[in-house]
């Protein structure tokens, strides 16, 4: 509790009058000039309820005291009332700029001074208490926020773990080899980053890109529901077999729907989109739903190019590998799949990165 009042005035008589007025309610300490005042402030500033300050004094004047208080940051906590005869408007303005609360004019009128001092002390006490409260609350909020962040991070990890576990299932079933999954992730990442940079209209940010890349690992999860005799058939599929094979998109999205309650909505949505729509074509002639244009989710469009490119440059049981040169031209010319012009632009821009990644996994 601040219960001291500092009176600074070079006339002892004035100090005595103020002491008489305020002495009953407060402990009054006095200084006869600015130097003494600064010295007392240094020792007692935390106990001071108010400073009554004369401006014209020997050694150091009132402005020197204000300057010191401002420098030390005491003006915010301790109100200052200027004791003055008549002051010019300019002087008053300068005082207010320092953050002075008010003026006490001479001659001193006992009860008015008492009221004025009490008012300003009450105001500052209230303000200081409020500030303290806000500070405490801010601290509590900050704690809660950091707790929330830790929880969010845990949740993110858990979401990623689910993707990883499911990815392992796909790999274990020998549906695809692990290399294919990792390469598709890599190609998806290259393309998605380029798209984020070049076409902000898709609303991608680093978090969304990260999610799409992680989710791309599951694009073929539906293949675990395809019988081995079709999935692993070392020859060309019959039309019936091929129709069945195509159902890995819908089967995959259905498998993922079973997980919808255990992970975040955006994880479910992204993996679902990629599984179901990564065989759609931009011209509407893909499967399973025949979506066209940007009705195909952008996540699925990205994985689609990555998947096709990887299929082309890899050797499969039913075909040998195309060269990177051939693969590039087959995609750009529309010979193998139909893609969005914007995505193709990104693909052209990142050709070098695609080829470097293809080489890295080959060796």
């Amino acid at each position, binding site marked *: 509790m601040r219960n001291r009042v500092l009176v600074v005035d070079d*006339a*002892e*008589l*004035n100090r005595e009058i103020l002491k008489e007025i305020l002495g009953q309610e407060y402990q009054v300490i006095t200084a006869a000039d600015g130097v003494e005042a600064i010295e007392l402030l240094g020792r007692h500033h935390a106990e001071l309820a108010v400073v009554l300050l004369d401006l*014209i004094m020997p050694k150091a004047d009132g402005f020197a005291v204000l300057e010191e208080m401002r420098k030390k940051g005491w003006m915010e906590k301790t109100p200052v009332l200027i004791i003055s005869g008549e002051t010019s408007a300019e002087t008053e303005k300068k005082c207010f700029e320092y953050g002075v609360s008010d003026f006490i004019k*001479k*001659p001193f*009128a006992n009860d008015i001074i008492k009221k004025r001092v009490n008012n300003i002390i009450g105001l500052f006490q209230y303000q200081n208490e409020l500030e303290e409260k806000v500070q405490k609350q801010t601290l509590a909020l900050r704690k809660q926020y950091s707790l929330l962040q830790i929880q969010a991070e845990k949740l993110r990890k858990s979401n990623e773990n689910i993707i990883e576990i499911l990815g392992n299932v796909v790999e274990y079933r020998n549906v695809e080899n692990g290399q294919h999954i990792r390469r598709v992730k890599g190609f998806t990442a290259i393309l998605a980053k380029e798209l984020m940079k070049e076409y902000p209209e898709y609303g991608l940010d680093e978090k969304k890109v990260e999610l799409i890349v992680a989710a791309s690992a599951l694009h073929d999860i539906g293949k675990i529901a395809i019988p081995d005799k079709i999935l692993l058939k070392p020859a060309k599929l019959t039309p019936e077999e091929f129709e069945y094979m195509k159902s890995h998109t819908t089967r995959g999205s259905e498998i993922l729907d079973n997980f919808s309650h255990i992970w975040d909505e955006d994880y479910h949505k992204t993996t679902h989109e990629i599984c179901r729509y990564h065989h759609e074509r931009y011209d509407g002639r893909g499967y399973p739903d025949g979506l066209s244009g940007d009705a195909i989710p952008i996540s699925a469009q990205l994985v689609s190019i990555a998947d096709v490119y990887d299929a082309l440059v890899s050797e499969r049981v039913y075909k040998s590998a195309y060269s990177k040169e051939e693969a590039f031209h087959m995609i750009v010319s529309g010979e193998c799949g139909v893609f969005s012009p914007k995505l193709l632009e990104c693909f052209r821009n990142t050709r070098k990165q695609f080829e470097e990644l293809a080489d890295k996994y080959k060796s």
Partner: protein
Amino acid sequence: MDVRDCYRILGGDYDEVLARFCNREELARKFLYKFLDDQSYGLLMESLHEQNMEEAFRAAHTLKGVSQNLGFDRLQKSVGELTEALRSGKERPSDALVEQVREDYKTTAEAIQMLRESVSD
């Protein structure tokens, strides 16, 4: 002689002063006596004599403030004018003005002295 007589002699409105001291005559009396110990008049005259105008300004300013608080209207008027004359810190105030302050101070101090003596009698 009472406090009211004293104010009549030195030139001031006692009722107003008393009101400011919440009608406590003993307070008015206490601070009147303290005025006799106040150093600012002596410092003012000494500084003027030594041509230290800056110090003279501060002393005049202090004396003015004290006079205001005690309701010495006459002294406050002349010392107020002297304060303004000294504010620039360069020019010497006119001898007439200094003389006026000297006279007003003397009247005031003598009146208070008489009040004090009339009580102790």
